[in-house]
């Protein structure tokens, strides 16, 4: 029998409150599962593999948006990861102290900028840079390659991918910076000791030693890119239905979050609202998978015990 002392009561109260995290997760899952039961009962697997988004014939499928989500995030990783790694390596290994501190502040500030502001900037500024300096030349000279075909407008999958690339830089860069700083100096000294150049030390020893942590950082960035809503909604062009199947980088697309943000309140039928919530459920599953993977990777590297970084 546990005695009712102040200590035990206090511990019980905050233990119950600490369950809030689990409750939030369960609530989200519960709402999405019950909300989307309707669409899964009606369409079944068709909902995942279908391409239509038509309330008229009660046919909904999220395949184009899953592909759109993966494609934009893929572009983001392709462009953002090398940049972020460069930044992280520069900050840890090369930058003189006077540059290091302001530079890492700057990178962290990028993380603080609200996504709707990235979207605004993407819509009125980046869009035209991408259109004039990347898409038009590529389309003119390489337009025969399917992914560069179509009429570039600047509001398309490529721009969305690029804005995501900018947005994941702070996440990936700051986590990889931590990982790279955690590489023991003896590793570097040993490598220099056998005559390696700076480039070789970083390339073969530092990166290699921290590779699973860096991989975790990349996955964290991927998680951020996949869940990003507003910035993507503002620049991706928002196609729906079979038109949203990504065939070219220069055509309007749609991701799962932007689909929801655009259409959630325009549902004509209960089935359609259910379909939007179903899209949310698919997004939840993808993001859970990615976040759990990232969590496992990063904690294994930083050897978290009881929450403290050793």
């Amino acid at each position, binding site marked *: 029998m546990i005695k009712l002392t102040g200590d035990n009561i206090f511990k019980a*109260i905050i*233990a119950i409150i600490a369950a809030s995290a689990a409750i939030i997760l369960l609530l989200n899952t519960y709402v999405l599962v019950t909300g989307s039961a309707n669409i899964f009962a009606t369409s079944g697997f068709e909902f995942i593999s279908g391409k239509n988004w038509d309330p008229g014939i009660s046919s909904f499928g999220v395949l184009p948006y899953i592909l759109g989500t993966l494609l934009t995030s893929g572009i983001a990783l392709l462009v953002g990861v090398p940049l972020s790694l460069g930044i992280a390596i520069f900050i840890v290994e090369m930058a003189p102290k006077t540059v290091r501190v302001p530079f890492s502040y700057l990178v962290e500030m990028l993380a*603080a*900028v609200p*996504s709707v502001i990235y979207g605004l900037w993407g819509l009125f500024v980046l869009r035209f840079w991408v259109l004039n300096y990347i898409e038009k030349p590529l389309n003119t000279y390489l337009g025969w390659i399917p992914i560069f075909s179509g009429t570039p407008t600047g509001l398309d999958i490529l721009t969305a991918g690029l804005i995501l690339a900018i947005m994941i830089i702070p996440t990936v860069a700051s986590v990889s910076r931590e990982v790279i700083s955690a590489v023991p100096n003896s590793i570097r000294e040993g490598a220099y000791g056998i005559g390696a150049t700076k480039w070789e030390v970083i390339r073969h020893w530092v990166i290699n030693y921290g590779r699973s942590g860096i991989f975790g950082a990349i996955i964290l960035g991927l998680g951020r890119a996949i869940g990003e809503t507003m910035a993507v909604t503002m620049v991706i062009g928002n196609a729906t239905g079979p038109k949203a199947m990504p065939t070219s980088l220069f055509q309007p697309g749609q991701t799962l979050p932007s689909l929801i943000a655009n259409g959630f309140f325009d549902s004509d039928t209960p089935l359609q609202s259910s379909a939007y919530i179903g899209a949310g459920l698919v997004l939840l599953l993808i993001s859970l998978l990615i976040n759990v993977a990232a969590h496992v990777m990063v904690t294994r590297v930083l050897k978290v015990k009881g929450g403290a970084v050793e």
Partner: protein
Amino acid sequence: MRGIPAINLQFLTGDGLRYGIGPAIQGTLILIGLTSAIGIPIGIMTGVYLAEYGTNKYASWIRSINDILTGFPSIIVGITAYSLIVVGLTGTFSPIAGAVALAFIMIPIIARTTEESLKLVPNSVREASMALGIHRWRTIISVILPSAKSGLITGTILAVARIAGETAPIMLTILGNTYFFQGLGKAMDALPLRIFASSRSHLQVEQTQAWGAALVLILIVLALNIGVRLASRGRYKR
């Protein structure tokens, strides 16, 4: 970013009919207040539990879930708050629903930073207090929390800065309009929503409004961030 000369007194205080962003600024402040009222106590208590009693299996599960929640797509939180509160409980769009959605985002962040800053309090402080015969719960409330105060404030302000710019969840919960605050049970405007709505317009005046609102929002967020960095300079040096 692009500072746009949209800002003047009427712009900052005027209502939507004159393309002002007064209602949006007011709405953002109300949201920050309500969210903090829900999120800060829960977040801090969760963090206290994880830091002070967090060696068991239950705590490590909570800690992992917390980490996962920090990377959660915000639009999903919006759907949840919409279904639970806007549709389920009150039947209207309301700042309350918005605040609940934002609190879902805020709690994991605050729990995390609280745990980290409590860990920085040396164990000798705990032991000294216990040695005086003070109960553990009194120790936590009167000794440990005050000595971790600046860390707690830092974490809280960063979390506030984060939720101030969240758009997707509040779009589904407070909807956005062009009027000043009309009550806790009515739809409301907020800066991120105003930016989003105005940026979709073809009218020059509304696009200018979007830029002006963006400038105000970014000033708020950056001021919070820079303030925290200056205040806590040197504290977290590795």
